[in-house]
C-alpha cells in the first residue's frame, strides 16, 4: 500500500531531518477543491486520513484532515465539521472485526467518532501520532517540528523518498498470476535449453520424414498404376525406387521419432522434478501463518499430483501437440505447392474446428480448475480424519465422517458430470467435421479431375495427406482438455510459488556476530486475521536472564514467543536481538540461535540419534550422547532394545510423553542456542515425569536467555523475572515476591493455584513456597485455562 507507514517519536531527530520535505501529505484530488476555501493561506496540512465507512457503517468515502491548527472532517455529503485543536483533545484508535474506529474526545465527553476499514489503519496510526505531536507541542507552547520521515509500518526503517515499498521487508504484491500460466514453466525449462533445441530439431526432421510417404503415392499412382490401367507395362525399377523410398522414409521416421521422444521425455521428467522440489522448498520457507490457513491435503495434492500431471502433459501431450502443429504447417505447405485451389478447399473446415475449440476451451478450463479444487477437498477430508482417528472413534462419529467424504465425492461427481457434458460432445463433433472435410475434398477433387485440372495421383496424395491432417486435428482437439488440466494444475502450483513468504528474507541481510542473547521487544503489535492478538508489548530481556511468561490461555504468550522465533512477523513495532531487528537477519541464521521445546514434542521417523541431531545433522556421536545425558534421556534410551539406533515412529510412538519431551530437550541442547524458548514444555506430562524433565531443563537453561511459558507457576520457580500478560498486553512485571505483594493479576493467578493446593489437603509443612509441581500441576490446570 502506498505510504504504509507511521511516524517515529518527535525526539528522533536523526530520521526527521533529511526527508522531512518529502513527507508532507497531499490532499487527494477530489477533496482539494472542497477544502480550498476553508483552509487559510498559511495553514499547512499535517496529516490526512481517508475514511471509507459512515456512521451507519455503510461504505462511503470521506476524509479527515489534520492541519497545524484544527481538525476538519469532510463527510461525503453535508457540511464540514471543524474542531480547533485544543490541549485537552485526545484521539482513541480501536478496532473490532475489521472495522477501525477513531474517537475524538475532550476531558468531558466524546466529540466525534469516525469509522473505516483496516485498509486505512497505517494512515490512521500516522494520523494519531502526528495529532499527538501537535497537541503536545501546543501544551508545551513550542513548535511541533517538521513531519517526521515516513517509516515503514512493519520495520520502522525510513522509506526511500521516492518509493512506497519498504526495501527491508518488501511489501506483498497483489498481481494475479497470468492466464498463460503454462508458459511460466519456461523458468524451469531454461536450464535444459540445449536438450529442448535438439528435441525440437529432431521433431522437425521426424515429422518431415513421415510426410514423405504420401508424397511418393503421387508418382506411384500417376507413373505406375494409371499407365498400367491404360495398357502399359509396370516399370519394375520405378516401383522398386518408390517402394524403397517409402521404406527408407519409414525407417528414418522411426529412428528420429525414437530419439526425439526419448530426449524430450528426459527433459520433461527433469522439469517435473525441478518444479516439485522448487515448490516444496518454497513451501518450507512459508511462515506458520501460511500453513495455518492451508489444508494439508490440498497442499499435498498440489505438490504431488499436480506436478505429476504437468510432467505427463509435457512429456506426452505437449510433445504430440508440437508435432501436430509442425505436421499441419508442413502439410499445408506441401498441399499448397501441389495445387493451391484444392489446398484451399481442404483447409475450409479448419476455422470451424478452431472456433469450436475456442468455444469449449474456457468452459473446460474452469471445469478442470473446479475439479482440481474439489479433488483437494477430498484429500483434505482424508488428511483431517486419519490423524484425528482416535477422536472420531472415541465419539463414534464414523458415520458423520463417512458422510463428509460422501459429500465431497458427490461434489466431485457433480463437477465432473458437468464437465463431461461439454467434453463428450466435443470429440464426436470434431470427428463429424473431419468427415465433412473429407467429403468436400472428394467432391472438389473429382470435379477437378473431371476438368483435367489435376491427375488422379494428386487427388490420391491429397486424400492421403488429408487423412493425416484431420487425424492430427482430432488429436489436437484432445490436447485442449489436457492443456487445460495442466494449466489448472500449473496455476495451483504457481499459487504456492507466487505466495511471498510473510516472513521475507531481508534484501540487505545483516549478519549476527557472536550472539549475547539480549532480546528487545519494542511496541509490538500483532494481528491475526482481523483479531488483534498483541498490543503495544514492550520488554527487554537481558542476556542469560530467564523470563517466565504467565497469563490465561489466549493472553498472547505463545504468539509473543512465535514472534520471537520469527514464525510470524510483527504487525507493528519491532523485535531486536542484540539491538538488531530480527527481520534484517537471514531467517535460518537467526533460528540457529534459538532452541525451542514445545508442549507436544514432534519426533520425525528415524532413529533416536537422528532425532536428537535434527538441528545439527553433523553432530558427532559423543555430542549426541552428551546432549542426551544432560537431558536425562541417556538412561532410558539405553534401556531400549537398539539404544540410540532405535527407530521411533511418525509421531514418536512407542515412547512416553516424558521420554519424547526429553529427546526434544536433548535436541535443543545439542544446537547450543543462545536463546531458549520453552512453550509449556512440561504441561502434557504427569508430575513425576515433570520432575525428571525439570532436572533436564535446569541443565538446558544454564547460561542462556530463556523465555518460558507455563500454566503451572511452579515450573517458573527459577525465573529471574515474571511477565504477566492479559489479553495481548503486558499487565505486570517483576519477581514472584514483588508480584505477590502487588496483589494484582499475578496474585490472583497464584491464589487460584494455591486454593487448588489447599483443596487437596496437603499439609503446610510439606508445601513449598510456591505450589509444587506435585500438587498444583494437573489440579490447577482447569482454574487457569
Amino acid at each position: 500500500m502506498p505510504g504504509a507507514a507511521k511516524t517515529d517519536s518527535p525526539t528522533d531527530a536523526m530520521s526527521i531531518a533529511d526527508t522531512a520535505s518529502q513527507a508532507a501529505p497531499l490532499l487527494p484530488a477530489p477533496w482539494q477543491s472542497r477544502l480550498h476555501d476553508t483552509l487559510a493561506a498559511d495553514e499547512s496540512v499535517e496529516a490526512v486520513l481517508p475514511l471509507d465507512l459512515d456512521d451507519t457503517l455503510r461504505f462511503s468515502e470521506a476524509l479527515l484532515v489534520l492541519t497545524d491548527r484544527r481538525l476538519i472532517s469532510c463527510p461525503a455529503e453535508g457540511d464540514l465539521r471543524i474542531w480547533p485543536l485544543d490541549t485537552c483533545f485526545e484521539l482513541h484508535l480501536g478496532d473490532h472485526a475489521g472495522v477501525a474506529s477513531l474517537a475524538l474526545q475532550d476531558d468531558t465527553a466524546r466529540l466525534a467518532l469516525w469509522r473505516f476499514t483496516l485498509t486505512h489503519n497505517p494512515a490512521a496510526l500516522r494520523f494519531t501520532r502526528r495529532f499527538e505531536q501537535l497537541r503536545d507541542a501546543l501544551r508545551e507552547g513550542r513548535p511541533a517540528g517538521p513531519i517526521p520521515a515516513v517509516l515503514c509500518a512493519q520495520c520502522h526503517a525510513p522509506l526511500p523518498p521516492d518509493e512506497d515499498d519498504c526495501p527491508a521487508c518488501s511489501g506483498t504484491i497483489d498481481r494475479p498470476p497470468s492466464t498463460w500460466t503454462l508458459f511460466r514453466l519456461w523458468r524451469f525449462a531454461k536450464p535444459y535449453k540445449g536438450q529442448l533445441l535438439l528435441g525440437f530439431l529432431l521433431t522437425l526432421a521426424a515429422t518431415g520424414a513421415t510426410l514423405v510417404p504420401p508424397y511418393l503415392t503421387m508418382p506411384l499412382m500417376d507413373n505406375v498404376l494409371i499407365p498400367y490401367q491404360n495398357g502399359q507395362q509396370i516399370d519394375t525399377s520405378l516401383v522398386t525406387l518408390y517402394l524403397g523410398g517409402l521404406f527408407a522414409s519409414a525407417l528414418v521416421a522411426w529412428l528420429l521419432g525414437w530419439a526425439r521422444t526419448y530426449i524430450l521425455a528426459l527433459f520433461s521428467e527433469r522439469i517435473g522434478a525441478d518444479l516439485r522440489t522448487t515448490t516444496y522448498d518454497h513451501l518450507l520457507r512459508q511462515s506458520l501463518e501460511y500453513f495455518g490457513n492451508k489444508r494439508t491435503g490440498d497442499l499435498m495434492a498440489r505438490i504431488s499430483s499436480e506436478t505429476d500431471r504437468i510432467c505427463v502433459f509435457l512429456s506426452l501431450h505437449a510433445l504430440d501437440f508440437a508435432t501436430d502443429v509442425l505436421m499441419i504447417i508442413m502439410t499445408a505447405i506441401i498441399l499448397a505447392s501441389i495445387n493451391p485451389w484444392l489446398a484451399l478447399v481442404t483447409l475450409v473446415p479448419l476455422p470451424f474446428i478452431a472456433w469450436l475449440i475456442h468455444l469449449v476451451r474456457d468452459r473446460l478450463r474452469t471445469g478442470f480448475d473446479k475439479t482440481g479444487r474439489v479433488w483437494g477437498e477430498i484429500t483434505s477430508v482424508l488428511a483431517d480424519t486419519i490423524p484425528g482417528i482416535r477422536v472420531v472413534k472415541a465419539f463414534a462419529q464414523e458415520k458423520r465422517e463417512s458422510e463428509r467424504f460422501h459429500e465431497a465425492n458427490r461434489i466431485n461427481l457433480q463437477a465432473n458430470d458437468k464437465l463431461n457434458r461439454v467434453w463428450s460432445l466435443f470429440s464426436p463433433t470434431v470427428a463429424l467435421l473431419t468427415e465433412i472435410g473429407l467429403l468436400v475434398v472428394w467432391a472438389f477433387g473429382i470435379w477437378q479431375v473431371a476438368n483435367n485440372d489435376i491427375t488422379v495421383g494428386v487427388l490420391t496424395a491429397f486424400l492421403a495427406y488429408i487423412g493425416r491432417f484431420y487425424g492430427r486435428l482430432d488429436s489436437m482437439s484432445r490436447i485442449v482438455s489436457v492443456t487445460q488440466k495442466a494449466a489448472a494444475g500449473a496455476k495451483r502450483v504457481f499459487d504456492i510459488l507466487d505466495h511471498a513468504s510473510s516472513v521475507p528474507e531481508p534484501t540487505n541481510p545483516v549478519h549476527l556476530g557472536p550472539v549475547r542473547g539480549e532480546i528487545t521487544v519494542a511496541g509490538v503489535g500483532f494481528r491475526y486475521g482481523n483479531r488483534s492478538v498483541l498490543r503495544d508489548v514492550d520488554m527487554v530481556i537481558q542476556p542469560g536472564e530467564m523470563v517466565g511468561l504467565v497469563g490465561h490461555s489466549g493472553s498472547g504468550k505463545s504468539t509473543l514467543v512465535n514472534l520471537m522465533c520469527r514464525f510470524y512477523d510483527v504487525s507493528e513495532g519491532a523485535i531486536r536481538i542484540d539491538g538488531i531487528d530480527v527481520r534484517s537477519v537471514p531467517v535460518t541464521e537467526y533460528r540457529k540461535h534459538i532452541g525451542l521445546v514445545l508442549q507436544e514434542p514432534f519426533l520425525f521417523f528415524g532413529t533416536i540419534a537422528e532425532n536428537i541431531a535434527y538441528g545439527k545433522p553433523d553432530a558427532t556421536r559423543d555430542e549426541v550422547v552428551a546432549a542426551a545425558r544432560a537431558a536425562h534421556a541417556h538412561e532410558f534410551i539405553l534401556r531400549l532394545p537398539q539404544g540410540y539406533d532405535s527407530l521411533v515412529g511418525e509421531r514418536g510412538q512407542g515412547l512416553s510423553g516424558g521420554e519424547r519431551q526429553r529427546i526434544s530437550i536433548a535436541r535443543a541442547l545439542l544446537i547450543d542456542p543462545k536463546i531458549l524458548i520453552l512453550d509449556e514444555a512440561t504441561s502434557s506430562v504427569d508430575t513425576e515425569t515433570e520432575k525428571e524433565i525439570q532436572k533436564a531443563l535446569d541443565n538446558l537453561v544454564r547460561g542462556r536467555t530463556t523465555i518460558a511459558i507455563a500454566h503451572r507457576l511452579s515450573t517458573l520457580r527459577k525465573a529471574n523475572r515474571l511477565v504477566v500478560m492479559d489479553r495481548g498486553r503486558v499487565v505486570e512485571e517483576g519477581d514472584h515476591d514483588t508480584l505477590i505483594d502487588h496483589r494484582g493479576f499475578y496474585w490472583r493467578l497464584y491464589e487460584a493455584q494455591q486454593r487448588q493446593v489447599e483443596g487437596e489437603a496437603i499439609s503446610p509443612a510439606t508445601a513449598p513456597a510456591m505450589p509444587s509441581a506435585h500438587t498444583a500441576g494437573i489440579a490447577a490446570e482447569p482454574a487457569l485455562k
Partner: protein
Amino acid sequence: MTTPAMDFTLTRSPFGHLCLTDAEGVRHEQVQVVRAFPIAAPDEGISLLSADGHELAWIAHLDQLDANTRRLIEDTLAARDFMPVLLRLKSVSSFATPSTWEVDTDRGPTRLVLRGEENIRRLPGGMLMIADEHGIQYLIRKLRGLDAHSRKLLDRFL
C-alpha cells in the same frame, strides 16, 4: 419470556461507552456487548462483558429486554458488528487469486481483494463467508439467492 430477569441497568456515558450497574449497585465502565452467534442466531445469546473481558450479564434473547435497554444494546451492536452481506458481484479482476472484486453489499458498493480461494468458507445452511485481505468478513446468505451473473462469477472460485 415476557418478564425478563433483568437485574442490571445500562446507561451510556458522555464518552459513548456503555455503563452497567448490577444488582449490587456496582458500576462497570466501558461495557462491551457481543453476540454469541452473530451469524447463526444474531438475536439470541447476547453477552455483556466488562472492560477486562469478564461476563457481567447474559441475555438469552433480545425480546427479554425493556425497550430502552434494547435500544441501547442494538445501537451499540449496530455500531460494532460489521459483516456486509454480499448482494451482487459486479466484476472480478481475474479468476486467479489474488482477485479484486467489485461488489454490491447491503452497506453500499465496495471493492474487496480475495487473497485465495481458501478465504471463501462454507458455513452450515448453504451460507458462504468471504474474508478479504484486511479481515473483513462478507456474508452470502444464500448462494441461490444471488443473480445469475454473480453466481457464475462466484462459481469460478468455489
